């Protein structure tokens, strides 16, 4: 059932830093099917965050093609990109990126609010997402009243409340102790088991080992790929 969710061909990303041209990604070819569970490792500066940002439509490649769900992303305008980020892709960041003045519930509600969903439908989805993240008793707390692990689970609930097909996590455990980190990974895995495609950028070998497919990047290239799906 590995229909292509993501299709990268000869993808390059070049940054201009002063007079220098930094090749963050060099001719990356990658095929990711729906429902896969990938980990992405590599030393700092190897291009894994750049790749994740391009996959999440936060950044555009300098050359090459990126087909998402069969559609060429190069042809999308800003508004379409924003809509895709809103309903097809979910983000989890290393530093949570919660809005401090909003409660857990309101933070999770944000993507639905931005999309203009009616209040009643929102309440149900937010409650569900927070329950899946194990936070049904913390909905009215503000980020400052939550532990690091709880904050990251709020962020996961926010990323998944729109039921996106693709969940991108940039070092989701990088800022957590190992017990909290394990809890976060378990939630990501349960979401994957429900059919969500999950890509995790990590430095942590334990996290890496749990993924069903492991990519290793060096110098902007994919060096090894354990389970390149056909």
């Amino acid at each position, binding site marked *: 059932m590995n229909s292509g969710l993501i299709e990268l061909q000869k993808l390059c990303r070049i940054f201009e830093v002063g007079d220098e041209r930094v090749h963050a990604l060099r001719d990356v070819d990658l095929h990711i099917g729906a429902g896969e569970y990938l980990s992405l490792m590599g030393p700092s500066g190897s291009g894994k965050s750049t790749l994740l940002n391009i996959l999440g439509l936060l950044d555009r490649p300098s050359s090459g093609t990126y087909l998402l769900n069969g559609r060429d992303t190069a042809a999308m305008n*800003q508004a379409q990109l*924003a809509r895709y*980020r809103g309903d097809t892709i979910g983000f989890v960041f290393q530093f949570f*990126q919660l809005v401090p*003045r909003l409660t857990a519930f309101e933070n999770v509600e*944000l993507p639905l609010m*931005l999309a203009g969903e009616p209040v009643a439908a929102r309440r149900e989805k937010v409650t569900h997402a927070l329950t899946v993240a194990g936070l049904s008793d913390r909905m009215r707390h503000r980020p400052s009243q939550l532990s690091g692990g709880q904050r990251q689970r709020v962020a996961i609930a926010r990323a998944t409340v729109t039921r996106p097909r693709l969940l991108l996590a940039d070092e989701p455990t990088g800022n957590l102790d190992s017990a909290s980190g394990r809890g976060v990974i378990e939630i990501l895995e349960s979401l994957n088991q429900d059919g969500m495609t999950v890509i995790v950028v990590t430095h942590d070998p334990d996290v890496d080992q749990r993924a069903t497919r492991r990519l290793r990047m060096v110098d902007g290239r994919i060096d090894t790929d354990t389970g390149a799906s056909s």
Partner: protein
Amino acid sequence: MRWMDLARFSLAAISRARVRSLLLIGTVAIGSAAMVVLTAVGDSAKDYVVEQFAVLGSQLVMVFPGKSETAGGALNASFGGTVRPLTLDDAAALTRHHQVIAVAPVVMGAAGVQYAGLEREAPVLGGTPELLQIRRWKLAAGQFSTDADWDKATPVCVVGDKLARELFGSGQVVGQWLRIGDSRFRVAGVFAAGGRSLGMDLEDLVLIPVADALRLFDTESLFQILLEVADREDLAAVERFALATLRERHRGEEDVTVVTQDALLGSFDQLFNALNAGVLVIAGVSLAVAGVLIMNVMLIAVSQRTAEIGLLKAIGATGPLIARVFFAEAILLSAAGALLGLLLAQLLCFSVRTFWYPELAAAPGWAMLTAAGVAMTTGMISGLIPARRAARLEPLAALGQH
């Protein structure tokens, strides 16, 4: 994003930065309150002046000796030396027009008033019974009976009630003799209390027949001649008649100034409109300052919240939506400021009315609308640039700031 959500989201952001928001709302409020209160004060001043003039009656023509000209005045003065006097005969000549109901020659000066060893310096007015009629002055006791012939001196006078109290205490006033300058006059009447018009306090005044006043001040020129006209529409005709008659009597020279009350009121109106405009400009400047402040504060908010903006973009917000969020904040802030300003203005007007000046006019509706409108517009314009800056932030660059 729904309107309600937008409002709620912006309100949460505003109440988060409490001190900053309050300062900003206060600035806008002071600006718009100033606009409203200053307009109310201006209107009251105008009302006051109009009321003072209304006492005169609106069918009044005033004749003064001397020509007031905007150009060549200095030249005239150096040529002519003295101004040709305006005489009682001139005044008599003005009674001939059939539209003129009454003519009052007026002489003005000041003299010492003595009674039983008490002396007061008081303004002395020379006039005729027509003056009482034209200026609607009432007597509390007695009457101002003079010779029908203006040229005949009669030693009678009317005194203001305060002056009467000071000179005679609580005793009988009418019928007493007092000395004005070096002549003796019999008190024939007392002005009714509270009379006041055009800055002249009747309570301190002494009125004597015009012939006596001319002799007392040793002059042949009147201070002015007042004409009351039967019909307002004939004001212009009477004005022309007065000018023509006096030119003829003064050997073809136009050496008097004729003023109608309409013209006087008109020039006051212009003056007050100019004042009002000035006041509005001043208040407008303070609102512009508030606008700059709003922009500054919003720009700070944008740079403090870049991470949040990046996040909103990452989870599906478009640039225009981000702009709307920040724009809504600016609008809410200025609306709150405008509202508070209007309340503040009402409170100020109320206190002034209660403790200081009960006749203060209500702030006119257009001033409140203008103040609120200007405050809102300023807020919107000032919110525009920060909103656009927020909208243009790259999600990645914004998220990169931890």
